[in-house]
């Protein structure tokens, strides 16, 4: 059991965060707290995505220069030569040596989406506040019923 928790630590963290977020979105009475829950919920999913791209002992996904690219600038070529030896020492291109960049890139988009959603939601909360003078759900409901 302990092994299961430690080996899949990242997934446990994402599940716990997600549940916290979901709880806040559904159970909290205050609109801003609901939005905080929403942000936690979205962030949990981002953490999940980022962690599936990670590998043990892998480095950032920038391919070492092999000196065969014709369209690079001279400066880049100079740097390339310096790195080339290291690259050759490590053997040819090894996908295991790099983390998977795709999930990270996807999450950049998801972050933008999350920010936009939060912005729209905040504007709506402000409108609710203007209309009913409160951001507590039960008070707003009371005022609607009146």
């Amino acid at each position: 059991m302990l092994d299961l928790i430690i080996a899949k630590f990242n997934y446990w963290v994402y599940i716990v965060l997600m549940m916290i977020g979901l709880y806040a979105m559904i159970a909290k009475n205050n609109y801003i707290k609901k939005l905080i829950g929403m942000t936690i919920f979205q962030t949990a999913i981002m953490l999940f995505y980022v962690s599936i791209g990670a590998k043990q002992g892998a480095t950032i996904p920038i391919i070492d220069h092999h000196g065969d690219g014709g369209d690079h600038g001279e400066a880049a070529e100079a740097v390339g030569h310096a790195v080339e030896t290291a690259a050759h020492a490590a053997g040819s291109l090894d996908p295991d040596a790099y983390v998977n960049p795709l999930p990270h890139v996807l999450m950049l988009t998801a972050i933008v989406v999350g920010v936009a959603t939060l912005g729209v939601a905040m504007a709506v909360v402000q409108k609710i506040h203007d209309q009913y003078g409160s951001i507590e759900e039960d008070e707003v409901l009371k005022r609607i019923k009146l």
Partner: protein
Amino acid sequence: MDIVQQAPILMILCPFLGAFAVSLAGLIQRRWCYPLTVLFTAGSAYAGLGTLIQVLRTEGGVIRYRMGGWEPPFGIEFRLDALNAAIALMVVVVALLVAIYSRQTVASETAGKEGHFYTLFLLLTVGVLGISMTGDAFNLYVFLEISSLSSYALIAMGRGRAAFSCFNYIIMGTIGASFYLLGVGYLYIKTGSLNMTDIARILQEHGLYSSNSVRIGFLFILIGVWIKMAFVPLHRWLPNAYTFAPSTTSCLVAPLMTKVSIYVMIRIMFSVFNPEFVFGVGPRSDLVVWLAVIAMMVGSFYALAKNKLKMMLAYLVIAEVGYMVGGAWLANATGLTGAIFHILADGLMTLALFLAAGAIYYKRKSYNIVATKGLFGKMPFTMGAFAIAALSMIGIPPTCGFFSKWYLISGGIEAGHWGFVVGLLTSSMVNAVLFFRILERAYFEKPELPYEPGRQGKNALNFVERKGVDEAPLTMLAPLWAASLGLVLLGVYSGVVIDFISRYVNSVGFQ
């Protein structure tokens, strides 16, 4: 390169670039917003027609449009086949009709905000079109959020409880989209791909159907789209959000958002996965069909209990979602054909009904059913079109509602799911009661003065009751009649459309 081959991308670029143009026009000269919106949606509809013709002419009936020439698993592609070419065309046609219709309603309900309104209008069109065309699972999420964000803002522009109901919609919508994203993540872990066709291929080749991650991913995606389409019991956000939105918004959002979510469900079920997996390993299909039956009952009977025209229509949308989800989960080709045909039919029916409701509101300043008293005398053209849409909703030939229900019921009988058959018939009966109650009032009773206690604001001062015919303006009537005649045409030519749809259904591979 031939311009015709660029039709799929032009279809989405037209409203996208239009959104920029309109937001600029909103700053300079607000009068330009309306014609620009009509122009750009018309361009998109033209490209949509071109796309459909291209799909019809292509061998195999599949167009794959690659962005920037990147090969599909690495690049994003638009993939149009017999399932979504017609749906994409329906989306642009709805957008065009609502754009034409919006002239007076936008000016009267969201005065001074035309620039913002039309920008969001076009962005919503972009999002929904993108959902219906993309062949990439993550790209679909992005388009889903583009359309949802614009619909949140459009709904919140309404009066009364709009902001309050919009907030609930934001919370539910975000949960739905996040679940979809999570599901895609699980599929990505297993397959390492985001392209739908590629995922399907990898799942098949490596026999990943028995993997728990894949099953969980499928379930998460299902829950996500069910929330987005307001499938019972996740439907609570919908009626208020659609009722309190400005009338143009509900005309645009009601026909598009739920139908497109159903399209996504069908796409994931049958293009990414296959019937064997969905009905063998997924949730038990008869349970989902029973949920669909509950959706029909809840939608229809709540609609019967409402005395606000728009609220009633919003509950009918929930019932219609039940028809389509049920049809797709009947696990046979006939039911799926019915469900896909009903996406097109219901898109137009909902459009016509909401357009008519908006026209009635524009003239009578009330959504209450009492306000429809004697309306055949006051607004004969509006009510005529409303009656055609109502007949289609009940399912009377030659309107298309009859043919889609025919296929759905045949599918139910074929599957031996009598609950679904009885549920659908009952729901149709309730629809009949519902609409004849309105039509009877509108035909036989004397018109009343506009009914709305405590009405205030500048609209009330401008309102002068006129004798005789007091019809909505032509820009509202023309789209309304186009939608109603479309219902009849879709019914008369249902054979052609069904033939086209069955190309996709046959490729799914039911046993």
